[in-house]
């Protein structure tokens, strides 16, 4: 295929050529960045929380009428008992928060009682001896809390645990050169002994600003006696729906003076996850839809302009055919012409994609786009362009030679 005559012809319809190339370039720039955003969001949503999500239901309970801390301890114990007796419930514990809940406490943890001098930040989960079993956490080293290690913690009491269980990631940050088990760490101004290490437990937040310590969680042996408590219930998977439906009524039947919000007081972990990643999923959907419609628009544009060019050049095509060009020659001509325009478009588009990414990095704290996305985008647009031009090109190849002798 001779390229020079094609280039010469393109000079005669500069406007159309430039328009298609520009459209391809902009589409490429937007689509690669959109794909990159989609991928980032999917990676974030894919992050394992470390808990046995399919079995869990969480209940947010508020005591009505502000009972005193002493009363709360009794009420809470009664609730845990009630929940444990529910058919289908395997285990339960009370806590301040749970992974993906978007609320909780962050502390610094390190090797010094001076809290301004910490090694890492960590999320704090108040736990008891049932926490590991309820959440289905994998203890990789050490042991669980025992029942007599769990103490009561009133409102605004000092948090200074004697023993803690931490995640593997946090253990590695605190003691990169060896096992953290049995060693001490300061989460308050008093040292705490690390008695156990769990494989993985995500913090309550999924925001990128907290991603830096996303897997650094600490379990503290406290029963927090606040007005608001969360019960985490592990139900057998086949009974999960049943337990979710009955838990609110069961608790109210046991004690009336409480608030479990009808709207979101009881949530399965699947709902918790959906809520936590709502904006990530929304962003991925939006980017996907925009990319798809954008690609379709660009394809339609190529079909439209190519059809116009074919219509304009029927006579020339007829002449070429009469002079001995085969159908393949004509088909090849239009495909090559489109490929040349497409290549110009993707070169420009690749630059634009990187530029757009730089701008997004500056404005929205995004990461640098991996070259793979641009490469994939380039391949995708070139293939799309060739597919789009195929029908008009095929029609062109079927222009009969006799067309040369006709005037319009």
């Amino acid at each position, binding site marked *: 295929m001779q390229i020079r005559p094609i280039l010469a012809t393109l000079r005669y319809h500069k406007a159309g050529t430039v*328009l298609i190339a520009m459209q391809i370039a902009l589409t490429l720039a937007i689509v690669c960045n959109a794909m990159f*955003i989609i991928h980032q969001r999917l990676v974030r949503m894919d992050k394992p929380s470390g808990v046995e999500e399919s079995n869990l239901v969480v209940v947010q309970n508020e005591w009505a009428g502000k009972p005193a801390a002493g009363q709360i301890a009794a009420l809470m114990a009664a609730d845990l008992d009630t929940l444990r007796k529910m058919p289908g419930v395997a285990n339960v514990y009370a806590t301040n928060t749970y992974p993906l809940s978007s609320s909780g406490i962050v502390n610094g943890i390190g090797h010094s009682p001076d*809290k*301004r001098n910490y090694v890492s930040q960590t999320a704090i989960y108040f736990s008891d001896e049932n926490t590991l079993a309820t959440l289905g956490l994998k203890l990789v080293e050490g042991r669980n809390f025992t029942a007599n290690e769990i103490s009561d913690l009133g409102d605004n009491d000092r948090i200074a645990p004697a023993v803690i269980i931490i995640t593997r990631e946090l253990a590695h940050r605190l003691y990169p050169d060896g096992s953290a088990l049995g060693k001490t760490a300061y989460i308050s*101004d008093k040292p705490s002994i690390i008695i156990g290490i769990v494989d993985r437990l995500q913090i309550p937040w999924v925001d990128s600003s907290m991603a830096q310590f996303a897997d650094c969680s600490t379990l503290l042996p406290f029963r927090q006696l606040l007005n*608001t408590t969360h019960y985490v219930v592990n139900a057998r998977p086949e009974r999960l729906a049943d337990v979710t439906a009955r838990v609110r009524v069961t608790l109210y039947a046991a004690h009336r003076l409480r608030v479990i919000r009808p709207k979101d007081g009881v949530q399965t972990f699947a709902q918790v996850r959906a809520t936590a990643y709502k904006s990530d999923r929304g962003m991925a959907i939006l980017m996907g839809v925009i990319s798809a*419609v954008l690609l379709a628009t660009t394809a*339609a544009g190529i079909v*439209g302009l190519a059809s116009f060019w074919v219509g304009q050049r029927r006579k020339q095509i007829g002449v070429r055919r009469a002079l001995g060009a085969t159908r393949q020659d004509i088909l090849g001509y239009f495909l090559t012409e489109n490929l040349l325009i497409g290549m110009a478009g993707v070169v420009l588009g690749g630059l634009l994609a990187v530029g757009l990414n730089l701008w997004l990095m500056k404005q929205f704290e995004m990461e640098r786009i991996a070259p793979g996305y641009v490469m994939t985008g380039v391949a995708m647009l070139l293939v799309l362009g060739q597919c789009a031009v195929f029908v008009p090109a095929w029609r062109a190849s079927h222009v009969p030679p006799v067309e040369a002798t006709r005037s319009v």
Partner: protein
Amino acid sequence: MLAHYLRLGMRSLRRNPILTMLMVLTIGIGVASSMTTYAVFRAVSANPLPEKSSQLFAPQIDIWGPQSRAQGADMPDALTYTDAMALLRDKKARRQTAIYPVNLTLVPQSERTEPFAVNGYAAYADFFSMFKVPFLYGGAWDMSQDDMHSSVVVISSQLNQQLFQGADSVGRTIRLDDHDYEIVGVVDDWNPRPRFYDVNNSNGFTDPPDIFLPFTRAIDLQMNTNGNTNCYGSAGRKPGFDGFIHSDCAWVSYWAELPDTKSEAAYRDYLTNYAADQNRAGRFHWQPYITLRNLAEWLDFEKVVPPETRISLWLSLGFLLVCLINTIGLMLAKFMRRAGEIGVRRALGASRKEIWAQFLAEAAMVGVGGGVVGVAFTGLGALGVGLVFEPDIARLARVNVSLIGLTLVCALLSTLAAAFYPTWRASRVQPAWQLKSN
């Protein structure tokens, strides 16, 4: 003449319905995607109190020093209880209030109804006049009741509906948690979005608060904040509520009303002096540093517009641009196909301007079509935003008259802009060439 051009345009558009439909759809989808994301953006970036936004200020005081920032802790966007009380005592602004969110429970008299949670704010009397809170019944408590730590409450019209079926409940008593409060006012429908006075705790678009009660009373009753508490190295604090409020933890929102630039400058000096005093008293050990942002600046600083909303707006504008380039190409193809016809008209005496007007009329029809399709798709988009944005934010994106108008205008203008080059080319067709080749 215009009617004639429109008729000609209609005929031409009907001649290749597929190409016409493609153009109309392209414009429609491009405009609709921009308008849908714009509707969301408009809702979240709105100024909730335009007439006073330049007079309301939120201060920050550097209580943790430069070392905390070196470790990645931001300067807190709330004050400590200690500082908020000091500022309130000095009363250097025309009006001022400390605010913190509270969550209480309400136990109805009837055994049959379940207790329910009420959310609201502990604030000072100035809150209501500063933020122009409208009242259905009664009014705000007065400043003396702040000083007396009175057990009074202002409730929302919604709570008033729920408890008193909408009757004037001023003077009646409600029991929140374990204390009684006398109702002094019922707020009329009031929920500024974003909720500027609490964006440091919430996303700013949640349901309206149910109650407001005196800050001094809330502290007496040791009510915990329902919002964020930011501490830095405060392990040495005393236990209990008293230890908490006197710690270096920041959790109290603070607003000051400063009517003009002079009072703003004076307040800035006052805050700097206050920080310097703390230095002298040995509490701070660094260069005094304060900020004072007005409402609009504060919303910006707190990043109330989620990055998702911004990115989607920009990307859909990029999408609209591609749609327009596409339309330019399609129109060029469509118009230039009729070069012969143009040649004949030109030869018969039509001026370039007339040709230009004729094709522009045709383009305008495409634009109107695109606008109609755009309005339909914007409506669909507004229904679909719930899939993409936070529910609190998504429900703010409403299709109203101004959005429909904007969609139509945007479609028409962008189509005419796209038509600029194709119509110009059409008007430059050389009659002689066309006639010859035929």
